[in-house]
C-alpha cells in the first residue's frame, strides 16, 4: 500500500507540470498584452515596453517557460501582474470562499442525492421512484446558470429572504456566512445531487441483482438489513467515484455560481485573470486545480481499497 501511494504521489508531479506547461503555451500564444491592459489603452509605447521588460515578458518563450519552471519547483508562483501581489497570496485570499462553497454544495448534493438514489432503487417502480427519477432528470437537464438566475429572482428579489449576492467570511459570524452561501451552494448542489441520485440508483440496482444479494435474502435477512449492510457498501464505490469527480470539478471553482453570486473565489479569479491576461495567476490556479484533482483521485482510490476488501494495491 505504501509503495502504491508513493508511486501515485510521484506520478503527480509530471502530470501537474504537464498541465502547467500546456496552459503556459496556451495563454502566451493568445493575443492580448497584459502590459497594455495594465497601463490602459492610451499609454505611450515606451511605458508599455518598460513594463513588459519589468515583467519579463520580452524574453523568448522558452526562457520564460524555464524561469517559470525553476520557480515552481521551489514553490514560487510569481507575482500577479494585475495586483502586484504574490500569486500565492492572491490565490490564498480567494481560496476560502471556493472551499466553503464547494464543501456546502457537496454536502447538499450527497445529502439529497444518496438517500434519494437508495430509496429510488429499493422501491423500484413505485411512485416515489418515479418522482425521484423525474426530479433527477430535470436536475441534470436544466442549465445551471438559468437555475441560478431564477433562484435569485425568487428568493432574493421577490421574497427578500436571502441576500442577492456576495460573501461574508465565517469570521463575521457563521450564520451570516451561511446566508450568503445558501443560494449558490444549493444551485450547484441540486444539479449535482441529480447526478448522484441517478448514479446511486443505478449502482444499487446493479448490486441488488447480484448473486450474493439473493443469497443474503435467501438466508432470511430482513430487507432493510440487506439494503444497508450489503447493497449499499458495494454501491458505494460507484458513488464515491462520482463524488470525487464532482468535488474536484468544484475545486476548479464553479465559475457560474461565483460569477452570478459574486463569490470572490478561485473560479471567478481565474476568469478575470484570463480576461486580464494575468499569466502568473492563471498558471498558479491551474497548477493548484491540477494538483487538487490528482490528490482527490488518489483519495478516491484509497477509499475504494478501504471499502472493498477485494481491492489490493
Amino acid at each position, binding site marked *: 500500500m505504501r509503495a502504491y501511494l508513493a508511486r501515485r504521489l510521484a506520478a503527480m508531479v509530471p502530470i501537474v507540470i*504537464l498541465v502547467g506547461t500546456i496552459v503556459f503555451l496556451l495563454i502566451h500564444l493568445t493575443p492580448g498584452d497584459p502590459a497594455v491592459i495594465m497601463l490602459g489603452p492610451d499609454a505611450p509605447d515606451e511605458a508599455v515596453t518598460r513594463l513588459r521588460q519589468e515583467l519579463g515578458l520580452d524574453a523568448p518563450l522558452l526562457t520564460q517557460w524555464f524561469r517559470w519552471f525553476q520557480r515552481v519547483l521551489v514553490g514560487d508562483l510569481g507575482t500577479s501582474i494585475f495586483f502586484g501581489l504574490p500569486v500565492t497570496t492572491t490565490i490564498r485570499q480567494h481560496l476560502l470562499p471556493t472551499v466553503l462553497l464547494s464543501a456546502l454544495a457537496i454536502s447538499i448534493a450527497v445529502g439529497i442525492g444518496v438517500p434519494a438514489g437508495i430509496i429510488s432503487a429499493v422501491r423500484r417502480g413505485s411512485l416515489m421512484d418515479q418522482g425521484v427519477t423525474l426530479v433527477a432528470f430535470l436536475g441534470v*437537464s436544466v*442549465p445551471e446558470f438559468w437555475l441560478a438566475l431564477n433562484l435569485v429572482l425568487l428568493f432574493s428579489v421577490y421574497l427578500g429572504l436571502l441576500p442577492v449576492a456576495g460573501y461574508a467570511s465565517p469570521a463575521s459570524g457563521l450564520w451570516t456566512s451561511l446566508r450568503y452561501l445558501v443560494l449558490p451552494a444549493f444551485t450547484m448542489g441540486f444539479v449535482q445531487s441529480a447526478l448522484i441520485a441517478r448514479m446511486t440508483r443505478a449502482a444499487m440496482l446493479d448490486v441488488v441483482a447480484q448473486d450474493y444479494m439473493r443469497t443474503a435474502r435467501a438466508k432470511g435477512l430482513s430487507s432493510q438489513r440487506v439494503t444497508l449492510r450489503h447493497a449499499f457498501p458495494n454501491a458505494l464505490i460507484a458513488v464515491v467515484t462520482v463524488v470525487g469527480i464532482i468535488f474536484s470539478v468544484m475545486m476548479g471553482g464553479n*465559475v457560474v455560481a461565483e460569477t452570478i453570486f459574486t463569490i470572490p473565489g478561485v473560479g471567478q479569479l481565474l476568469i478575470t485573470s484570463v480576461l486580464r491576461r494575468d499569466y502568473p495567476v492563471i498558471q498558479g490556479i491551474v497548477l493548484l*486545480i491540477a494538483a487538487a484533482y490528482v490528490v482527490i483521485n488518489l483519495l478516491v482510490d484509497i477509499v475504494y481499497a478501504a471499502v472493498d476488501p477485494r481491492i489490493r494495491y
Partner: protein
Amino acid sequence: MPRIPPPPRVAAEPISPWRLRWRLMLRRPIVILGGLILIGLFLTAALAPMLAPANPQRMEIADRLRPPSAVHPLGTDDFGRDVFSRVLYGIRLSLAIGTAVVVISTAIGLPVGLAAGYMPRLDNLLMRLMDALMAFPAVILAIALMAALGPSAVNVAVALGIVYSPRMARIIRGSVLVVREFEYVTAARSLGLSDAMIMARHVLPNCMSPAIVQGTFIFAYAVLGEALLSFLGAGVPPHIPSLGTILSGGRVYMGQAPWITVFPGLAIMLLVIGLNLFGDGLRDAFDPRLLRGGTA
C-alpha cells in the same frame, strides 16, 4: 406411462444482437418519448428557415423590447429582432454544435481508448494524459481556446470536443478491457491475426453500444456547455443566435422583457431532457446482461 412433456421449441434462426437491441429499445416508453422529442427538435432545426417568420438578424430599433404578439410570437429583443426566429435558429445551431462535438470527441477518444485498452504498455501513458486533460476545468480550457482561436461556432465545437474527449476515451477503454478477454478474441490472437485487425474487426464493434450511449450524454453536455460559454461571452459571437447568446443578451432585461430569457431556457431543457431520456433508454436497452439471455 407417465406423460413426457413435449420437447422445447427451438427458434428457427438466431437473432442478430443488433436486431435484439433494436427490439429492446422499442419496448421502452422512455426511449420512444426521448426519441420523439429529439426527432421533433431535429425537424424544427432542419426546417428553421421555413418556419421562422423573420430574419433572425434583422434589427428594427423602433420595435425593440416588444412583448409577444401576433407579429412576433415570442416578442422582440433589445435590437428589435424576432425572438421566435432566433430561438428556432438557436436550436439549429445547438444541434449542429452538439453533433460536431460528439464527432470530434469520438474522433479523439476512440483511437485513444482503443489503444489504451488493448495495449497495456500504452495504457498508463494515455490514461495519465487523459487525466491531465480532465484535470482542466472544462470552462477554463474552453475560454482559453476561444481566446486563442477567436469566437466562432466551429471553434466552440473544437474546444468542447477536446474537453469532452477523455470521457469517450474512458468509456471505450473500459469496454475494450472487457471485450479483450472474450473467447473469440483470444482465438483470433492465437490464429495469428494482427493487433490492428483484431481491434478493427472484433473489439471495435462490441464497444459501439457504450460509445453510442456516451455519445448522447456528450451531446447533452455540449448543448449545456455551448450555452454556458456563450453566456459567459466566450462562445459564439453574440449576434449569432444560439440558445446561450440569446439568454446572455436577455439577462439584463429579465425585469422588463422576461420573454427573451424564458424561451431559450426552456428550449435547452427540452433538448437536454430528450437526450437524457434517449440515452438512458439506450443504456438500459444495451445492458449486456439482458443480451445474454436467461432470466434478467
